[in-house]
């Protein structure tokens, strides 16, 4: 769709308003990511998993869903809640290790961030299945990386989703690296989309730099899911042109020339070029959207840093609805010693 200078094709059913909303989403996600790397270098947030270059996958997904549809992110999509109205401060607090980084998944229909690889896939399958059993027409989507397809949890979740005809979209961000392990060491499959055959599930493979291609593929999966056709696997092919996380040193394993090449195909720039071709974006609007995103981040980090230190009671709160009585005794003991 975004073929770098060719004639701009319009996607059926996508209004100018939606095209511009996707742009704001891309820029907000990009700005969050760029600022987070800076905040980390300034010691203002902890270790941070970078997602530069994967904004199109996240924005394409969110815009293809209704707000009542559920999203099950991995830590790589830590900021996806921004697109559902989650304050930047909340996500920044998550990376600052502060309990105000907890959010209520039911308020934005975005599950908590999943840190272990692929284990959110069966959650999404169960949620989608459970929604269908309750008679809801909402669907669920789960997003994970190429390395996740080697995990048992991916296999078990995909299989259960297919068997129960769960209304689910499984969106794989194939950025071809799992920290330092290339896709060729991860799987003997040429295409990850082929894995779907083993579950009796249809699959689509798209350019993950192209927000409209991701949007179109997810939308197809969502339509199938809502009509009772069960889950769809979408492989979005990208490249991890940034370190895995702030603690990573990719110079030990990655080809810098390839990284440069991939950075040329940046998903935000490609999309802005497309919008310019349609006459929907000019420099003033682009600047305004960027400034709006920067303001969100300035307010976010300010609010996060202004927050009181976490209450020690939160060590004990929330593990149970009805906690075993010894937890209260442990807290009393802690207060006796530490005051």
């Amino acid at each position, binding site marked *: 769709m975004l073929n770098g200078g060719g004639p701009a094709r319009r996607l059926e059913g996508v209004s100018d308003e939606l095209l511009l909303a996707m742009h704001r989403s891309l820029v907000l996600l990009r700005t969050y990511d760029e600022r987070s790397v800076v905040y980390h270098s300034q010691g203002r947030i902890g270790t941070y998993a970078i997602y530069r270059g994967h904004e199109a996958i996240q924005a394409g997904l969110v815009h293809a869903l209704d707000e009542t549809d*559920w999203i099950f992110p991995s830590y790589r999509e830590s900021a996806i809640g921004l697109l559902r109205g989650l304050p930047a401060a909340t996500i920044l607090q998550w990376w600052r290790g502060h*309990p105000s980084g*907890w*959010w*209520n*998944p*039911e308020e934005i229909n975005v*599950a*908590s961030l999943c840190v*272990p690889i692929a*284990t959110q*896939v*069966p*959650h*999404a*399958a*169960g*949620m*989608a*299945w*459970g*929604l269908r*059993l*309750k008679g*809801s027409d909402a669907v*669920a989507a789960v997003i994970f990386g190429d390395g996740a397809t080697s995990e*048992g*949890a991916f296999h*078990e*979740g995909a*299989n*259960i989703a297919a*068997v129960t005809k769960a209304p689910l979209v499984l969106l794989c961000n194939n950025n071809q690296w799992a920290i330092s392990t290339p896709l060729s060491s991860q799987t003997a499959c040429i295409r990850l989309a082929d894995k779907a055959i083993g579950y009796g599930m249809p699959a689509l493979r798209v350019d993950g730099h192209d927000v409209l291609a991701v949007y179109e593929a997810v939308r197809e999966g969502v339509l199938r899911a809502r009509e009772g056709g069960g889950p769809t696997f979408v492989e979005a092919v990208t490249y991890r042109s940034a370190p895995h996380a702030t603690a990573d040193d990719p110079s030990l394993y990655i080809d810098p020339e390839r990284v440069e090449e991939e950075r040329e195909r940046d998903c935000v720039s490609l999309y802005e070029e497309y919008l310019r071709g349609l006459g929907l974006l000019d420099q003033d609007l682009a600047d305004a959207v960027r400034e709006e995103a920067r303001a969100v981040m300035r307010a976010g980090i300010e609010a996060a840093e202004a927050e009181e230190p976490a209450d020690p009671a939160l060590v004990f*709160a*929330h*593990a*149970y*609805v*009805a906690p*075993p*009585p*010894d937890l209260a005794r442990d807290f009393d003991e802690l207060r006796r010693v530490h005051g």
Partner: protein
Amino acid sequence: MSAAALATRELLLVEAVNDALHVELARDESVMVLGEDVGRLGGVFRATAGLRDRFGPDRCVDTPLSEAGILGAAVGLCMAGWRPVVEMQYDAFSYPCLDQLITHVGRYRWRTGGRMAFPLVVRMPYGGGVRAPELHDDSPETYYVHTPGVKVVVPATPADAKGLLAAAIRDPDPVVVLEPKLVYRTARGSVPEGEHVVELGRARTARTGTDVTLVAWGAMVPLCERVADDLAGAASVEVLDLRSLKPLDEEAVLASVRRTGRCVVVQEAPRTCGFASEIAALLAERAILDLHGPVLRVTGFDVPYPYWQLEDWYMPSAERVSDAVRRVLAF
């Protein structure tokens, strides 16, 4: 007490489990059962018999062979408003589900700052002595008790099998219910009809005595009761059935040992870091001056559960428990 509350039926332990599931599924339409062979077959032990016919295939679901996937899906089902009751077919087949249990089931509520609840139940037959192939005999309670955010109960009688399972299903937190398969079809007792709930975290005095307290759970409770009978006349043995390992009824353990001054803890699981050690530590911390002798443990051994021609050497026997009682009395 009303006439209705007195109505009871004589049931085997596994029948009491089945009764609880029928009552709870009828009572709350958000309760669903899922697991391997639980529907058409009614479970390999028939614990779920009749549920699929009565409540339909969406509330008693035959799942793929996928223990981690089943429990992971149950997390999502909770988020969609269900109260899933998951069956793991056997103790040792539950190990793949530890991944989901540790990384998500026990943590998800905490991770949402207490905004979401995960009222799911994992129930499974557990324990040895049944002449079964490898990995059908384990006592995995320690793994579950050691997982924050999860509660663990172990019934020893038919009435408790029903009441604790009902309490687990109604509890707002995740609960693991370990059912002693050795006595599934030998423990028979009167079980209240209709709704019957046994509060979590309350131990039961199975035998009163004054010389020594035997602390046990699951299939070790009837064993300890036999020992108490065998020693009648020689020693007055109290048997405390913990019923709930987490929350633990610490006061019941302390009160009993305060009276008897002696304690032997009996478990099938391997010794090291087993739950018996937790009871010994509790008594060391909070009852040291009440004790007339060391707290002894009679346990399985720190080896793989043996092939069944050797299992009677592994399982705590009446002889080993009696021997421990004599040693602590002679101390």
